[in-house]
């Protein structure tokens, strides 16, 4: 596997959980989520690709969205974490730490 393919595979598995983590402490605008994750160049190719991801999270029942009328501009879409999304995030945290520790040990990148 070449470098771009490897990081694509890693990205796909973890990006959804990064979104869930960003929502843990409260609702966020869609545009805010997209901007925040779009800035992480190791995680995303372009901001636009985050919208299909958000749709998937919505269809999975892990987030809900609400439209909010804004006096100063267009209506804005908020995202909220659901209990199912919270549970998925907790589960991911356990798995990720175990995975990360194993790999670090084997490829000798331990701190």
């Amino acid at each position: 596997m070449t470098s771009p393919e490897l990081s694509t595979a890693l990205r796909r598995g973890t990006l959804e959980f990064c979104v869930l983590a960003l929502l843990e402490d409260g609702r966020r605008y869609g545009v805010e989520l997209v901007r925040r994750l779009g800035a992480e160049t190791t995680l995303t190719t372009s901001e636009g690709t985050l919208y299909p991801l958000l749709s998937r999270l919505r269809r999975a029942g892990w987030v809900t969205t609400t439209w909010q009328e804004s006096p100063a501009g267009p209506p804005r879409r908020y995202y909220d974490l659901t209990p199912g999304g919270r549970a998925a995030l907790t589960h991911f945290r356990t798995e990720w730490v175990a995975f990360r520790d194993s790999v670090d040990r084997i490829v000798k990148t331990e701190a």
Partner: protein
Amino acid sequence: MSAPADHPPANDRPTPDRTTNNQLVDGYLLSAARAFAPLPPEHAAELLADLRDHIAAERAALDAETEADIRGILDRLGDPQLISAEARRGTGQVSAPPIPALPAYRDVHPPAPKSSKTWLWVAVVAVAALCALGTVLGVGLFTAAEQGPIADVPGAPPSAPSPASSAPTATPS
């Protein structure tokens, strides 16, 4: 007499810049609509609405938008083909993390101990032996029936013609 306003409302009048900018946005959304054609219609509509609203929100945050601003917004959104590819990759189900989360199957389901397999083989051999025995007995009885009238076993084919013992087999025509 009041001085003319120094700063006319930025986004109210169709300045040349804004017309060009609107055209850029429309062009982008048009190519996005084409790129989303292979998707289920509701997904395509949802994505288009998201992109349209994203662009509108970004533009609203600008004081006085320039063409460079708009190009920046659209560049950061990225190629609609890539967005479409990402949408097609998802099947509506959230991906599982690509990590071996579960313990190895053999740790949870240890292989059956050897002794139970031995009993299985004993049972198979016993059944086979019974079948063989049954066949031998059946053949033996049949052979006996052939030899004489004593063994007129029901179900066995009639022996050689012996009027005293064999039942009439011909049906009245």
